[in-house]
C-alpha cells in the first residue's frame, strides 16, 4: 500500500494522511493508491504540513500499518532510545516491528 507522511508545520510532529486530514498515529494512515500525487500537490499548497511524501507500507495480521523503510518506522513511534517520549499508541506489539 502507499501512504502519505510529513511533518506538521507548527509542531514539526510526524503526521500521516488519514483520508481527510493529518493524524499523529501511523495506524490511521490510509492507502492512497493512485491518488498520492494529487493529494500531495493539494496538501503542499495548503501549507499545513512540511514536505509531505508518499511511502510504501503494509498492514500486518493484526491490522497495524507498517511503513516499509526503517526511517519511517522510527518516525512512526519516536526515538528507539527514548521510549518514554514515544507517540502514544494502542499497538500491543510495542516496538518489536520498528527495527
Amino acid at each position, binding site marked *: 500500500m502507499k501512504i502519505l507522511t510529513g511533518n506538521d508545520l507548527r509542531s514539526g510532529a510526524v503526521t500521516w494522511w488519514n483520508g481527510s486530514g493529518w493524524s499523529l498515529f501511523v495506524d490511521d494512515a490510509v492507502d492512497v493508491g493512485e491518488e498520492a500525487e494529487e493529494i500531495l500537490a493539494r496538501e503542499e499548497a495548503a*501549507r499545513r504540513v512540511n514536505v509531505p511524501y508518499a511511502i510504501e507500507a503494509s498492514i500486518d495480521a493484526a491490522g497495524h500499518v507498517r511503513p516499509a523503510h526503517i526511517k519511517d518506522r522510527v518516525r512512526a513511534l519516536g526515538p528507539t*532510545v527514548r521510549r518514554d517520549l514515544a507517540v502514544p499508541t494502542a499497538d500491543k506489539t510495542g516496538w518489536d516491528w520498528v*527495527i
Partner: protein
Amino acid sequence: MYRYDSYDQAMVDARVEEFRDQARRRLEGKLTEDQFKPLRLMNGLYLQLHAYMLRVAIPYGTLDSRQMLMLADIAEKYDRGYGHFTTRQNIQYNWIKLEDAADILADLATVEMHAIQTSGNCIRNISSDHFAGAAADEVVDPRPYAELMRQWSSFHPEFTYLPRKFKIAVIASEKDRAAMRLHDIGVRIVKRDGEIGAQFYAGGGMGRTPMIAPLIRDFVPIDQFITYAEACLRVYNRYGRRDNKYKARIKILVHELGAAEYIRQVEEEFAHLLSVGVEPPREELARIAAHFADPAFVDGPKTLDRSDPDFALWVDRNTHRHKHDAYVSAVISLKPAGGIPGDATAEQMRVVAKLAKDYSFDELRVMHTQNLLLPHVAIRDLHAVWSALDAAGLGAPNMDTIEDIIACPGLDYCSLANARSIPLAQRISERFAETGRTEVVGELKLKISGCINACGHHHAGHIGILGVDKKGTENYQLSLGGSEAEDVSLAKITGPGFDEDGVIAAVEKVTDVYLAARTEGERFLDTYRRIGMEPFKEALYGQ
C-alpha cells in the same frame, strides 16, 4: 569570558525580530517551505525526523552559569526536559515547535546567546581547546583569537553563501584537543622569538572524503591574522566547487589544486589584502583579550585525600592539570554507562551551573567529546564537586576510555542518518562497565556516526563505527587507527560490515587483540600502529 557590547546585543536582538517576522509569515502560509527553509537554517532551525531541531551556538564552548541556567529553562519550557551537547561544542534541542522558535531565540538573546550560523554554507561556530585559559601547556589563551574570528565571521557579507559549510578551530598548544587538523581551517597560535603568531592549516575535514589539513603557513604575525584568514576564504569562495555538493568543501579544492598551488593563490590574495587594510585594529584584539583575563586564583592545597577509591579513580580519570598548581580542570562526564552520549537533563544543567558558580569562577566549557568541563576547580574543593556530580548522575570516571564514546544522534533523531548510533554506544559502554574492562583497556577513543557525514567523528576514532543502510537494514563498518589529536590519523576500515550484535562483538574482539599484544604503557592506538591491521582482521574475519 567575552561579554556583548551594545553593538553585539543590537545585532542579535534585531536578528530575533527578523526571524519572528519570517516565522509568522510561514505560519500564516505566506511563505512556502522552499522559501522559508534557508531562512530558518540561518537561525539554526532544522527539521529532523520527529520535530524541528534548534542548534544553539556556544562560541568555542565557553559559557557561564547564567547561560547554562537559560539552556536548562529552554529545555524545560520549550522542549522535553533535556538537551544534547554536540561535537561542535554546541547544544541541540530535539523537540522544538516552530511557533516557539522566535521566543526561544529572544530568551537566548537575554543571556548573549543565539543560533546564528549554526547551519548553512557559512562559517560555523568557531571551536577551540576546551582547556583554553586553564591548560598548563598552552602558549596563550586561544579564545581571544577565536572570539576575534567569531566577530569577523559573523554576518560577513562575502562569506554568507560559501560553496559549502566552513568549520574553523583555534588552539594554542602542541597538544591538539580540538581535532584542529580535521577542520576546514585549523589555527594554532604559536610564539616565535617572543612574538605571537598563527600557524594555519587548511583543507581538513571528515565527512565522505576525510582529509588531514596540510600546513599552509608556519607563521602569520598576529596583526595580520584576520587578513590571512580572509585570503584563505576568498580563494575558497572563488574556486570552491559549487557544481557538486559532495566536492564543495575546501578540502577538495586544496586536494585538487595541490597544497602548493592553493598556498600560492592564498599568498597572492594575502598580499593584495594587506594593501587594502582589512585587519581589525590591535586595540580591538586588546579589548577582547581583556575579557579573558585570568580569574583571581589563590594559593591552596596541592594534594588531596585519596582514601575514597571512587573519588580517587574519578580524580585520576577526569581531572586535567591546570596552569595554577592549586587548581585542576574537572571533566563532567555526559557518558554514564548505558546512557545517551551528550544528553543532559534540565536538572543536571542546573547542578552544573551551580557548581560553576560556586567552584569554577562562574565558568563552564562544552567539550567536543560531548562532555562538560569546570575549567578552574581548586583542589581543596574537588571532593565537594565530585560528590555533587556523582549525586546528579554526572560522576562517571571515564574520560578518554571506551565508555567515553562520541556518538551522533543517528537514525533515532537525524533525517540524514542511515543507521542508529546511540544504541551501539549504550550497549558498548554498558558491556565494558559491567565486565570491568574499561579500566583494563585504558585510553581508547571510540566514535560512532550514523551516516557518511561523520558527525560522530568515526574517521578519527581509535575505533570508529560507521552506520550504513544495507538493503533497508542497519549495518556497521568498523575502522581502526584514527586520531583527532596531535598524532592525527584517519582510521582504516577492517573489512565487511556487521549487524548490531556483530559490531559490538567485534569491538570486544578488537580489544582482546590489543590486550594480548600490548606492551607496557601502550595505548590501543600505539599497539595498532605497531602491529598493524592484520592481527585485528584475523581475529575478526579469520576462520
